[in-house]
């Protein structure tokens, strides 16, 4: 009930930000030095070609009219026409988006199912070798140029061992290397935060209470400690979303994974500005929406947050 209301409210709040995003991209593209139509058309293009492009992009009308029109179009799902392909931008994006989402989800999943248990293990034996492992892993994970690691994986698993395909998305095993690469980027920090928050929670008085009631260590850890520690763990997952999406662009390029990232890099080399604009807007929208989902998850986990939010709504 109230949860639905809260989600609706957050969605409404996101709208000004998203309008800001579109405006930002709109202004950015108009800031291109020189005549955008000429730039887009290329140096060899005839004056007619340039005029045609100006027409297509509506560049001959006043700026604010252009923006309002663009805004209207964006909110009806029309992101313009790709210069390179001559097809609707939204179509190009929709074709590639599932690949990026798939890669992001599989990587996040891998990072969680490996990172969280390893972090818990490290927290339970903080001074053992595996206790330090989490710290070292996190440090290396957040210092690793992942495109380089991807290349090293290709060399090891594709070139030397010939176990896995090095690029593309042609077979089901194609996702293994890119997802592994991207997940290692996330895993280190996830482990570190899991370890730290578990250690902190295990020192809390309410954990002593659970033990004093005679409950087993299994329940102490997997019911009470895990639920309490999950708040910072989800926070770090939220903060890492940017890393995840940014990392996806790099990973896709390394493995020629046909997602939005490779499409964006192609679009840049072809100066396909409508396409660039569309892809960046879609990335930002995803980022805003997933952040919103993270906030909703807090509200579900923590009754105190829930109440504050409901109260703020009155």
């Amino acid at each position, binding site marked *: 009930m109230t949860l639905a209301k809260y989600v609706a409210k957050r969605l409404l709040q996101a709208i000004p930000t998203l309008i800001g995003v579109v*405006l930002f991209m709109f202004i950015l593209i108009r800031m291109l030095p020189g005549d955008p139509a000429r730039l887009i058309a290329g140096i060899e293009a005839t004056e007619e070609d340039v005029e045609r492009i100006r027409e297509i992009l509506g560049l001959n009308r006043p700026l604010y009219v252009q923006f309002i029109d663009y805004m209207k179009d964006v909110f009806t799902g029309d992101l313009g026409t790709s210069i390179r392909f001559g097809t609707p931008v939204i179509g190009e994006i929709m074709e590639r988006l599932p690949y990026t989402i798939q890669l992001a989800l599989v990587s996040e999943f891998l990072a969680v199912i490996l990172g969280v248990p390893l972090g818990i293990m490290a927290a339970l034996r903080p001074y053992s070798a595996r206790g330090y492992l989490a710290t070292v892993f996190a440090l290396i994970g957040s210092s690793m140029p992942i495109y380089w690691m991807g290349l*090293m994986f290709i060399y090891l698993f594709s070139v030397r061992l010939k176990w896995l395909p090095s690029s593309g998305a042609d077979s089901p095993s194609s996702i293994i290397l890119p997802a592994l690469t991207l997940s290692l980027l996330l895993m280190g*920090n996830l482990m570190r935060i899991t370890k730290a928050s578990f250690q902190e929670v295990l020192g809390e008085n309410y954990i002593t209470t659970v033990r004093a009631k005679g409950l087993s260590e299994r329940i102490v850890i997997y019911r009470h400690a895990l639920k309490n520690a999950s708040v910072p763990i989800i926070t770090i997952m939220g903060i890492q979303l*940017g890393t995840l999406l940014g990392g996806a662009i*790099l990973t896709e390029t390394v493995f020629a994974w046909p997602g939005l990232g490779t499409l964006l890099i192609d679009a840049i080399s072809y100066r396909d500005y409508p396409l660039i604009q569309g892809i960046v807007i879609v990335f930002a929208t995803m980022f805003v929406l997933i952040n919103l989902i993270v906030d909703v998850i807090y509200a579900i986990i923590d009754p105190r947050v829930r109440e504050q939010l409901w109260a703020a709504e009155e």
Partner: protein
Amino acid sequence: MGGRGVKVSTSGIGDIQAKIREAKRAARRRALYKFRANKGAVAGAFILGFMLVLAVLGPYIAPEDPYAFDLRRKLEPPSWDSPFGRDELGRDILSRIIVGARYSIGIALASVFLGSVVGVFLGLVSGYYGRVVDSIIQRITDVLLAFPIIILSIALIAVMGVGVTNLVLAIGISTIPVYIRLVRGLTLQAKSREFVIAARAMGKSGFYIMRKHILPHVLPTVIVQSSYYLGFTILIASGLGFLGLGVKPPTPEWGAMLGSGRTYLFSYPHVVTFPGIFILLTALAFNLVGDGLRDALDPRAGAYRR
């Protein structure tokens, strides 16, 4: 205090000021001691020092001209003559890495400097003055924060074009919003503290208070955030270089070396192995130093990453 303190002698005030100075010195000593006790941080500082030497002295210590190509020797694997091997144009990879240090590290330093100076300024102003100024700055921050940092940098580069200056601008701008958020929060905190209230009551100007009272309060957090950002922007800058969105060829920036060498990965892995190791080491060093600084300066400050 006021009524009875009329006869406070100047030497008394001098005493107090000396005591404050002594306390500050003691705090710095403590921070330095804590930093030195952290083995990782010391190791990081050593690696960093080494990289900085490369960055400064690069062209003087490089064994060969990093731009001189010799197609007869292209893709030669590592040997005594060229320890890291040669690239697709026969250039000495070791020399390119040594000279490239100034680009990779310089870009990170410059963009974090740019981002932190602008971000701290806007954060102070936004937090201190509040009202309309705050609203406007915060709405813009909201929008910028809606972009993951790499994507914002890519978008800016896409429009501005490649090159060292544009790279610094793009990455620098992308880091601004986080500084604004951090500093604004701390400024709001500081604003309600006695020393700021007292200074305002004494009629000090806003800029004076920001510089003298609030800036010192936010600085430790800003330093910690910056050291993390240095590690992060090295990765972003070289990532953009890898994507071909960084510096112009033939500049030997490490990421760009990776990007142009990747085609030869299958038969000549040495072309990409060594630049990657240097990127990793430098980012690692920044992060180790960052951890050490955080523990020494501001244990509660969590680094903010996007």
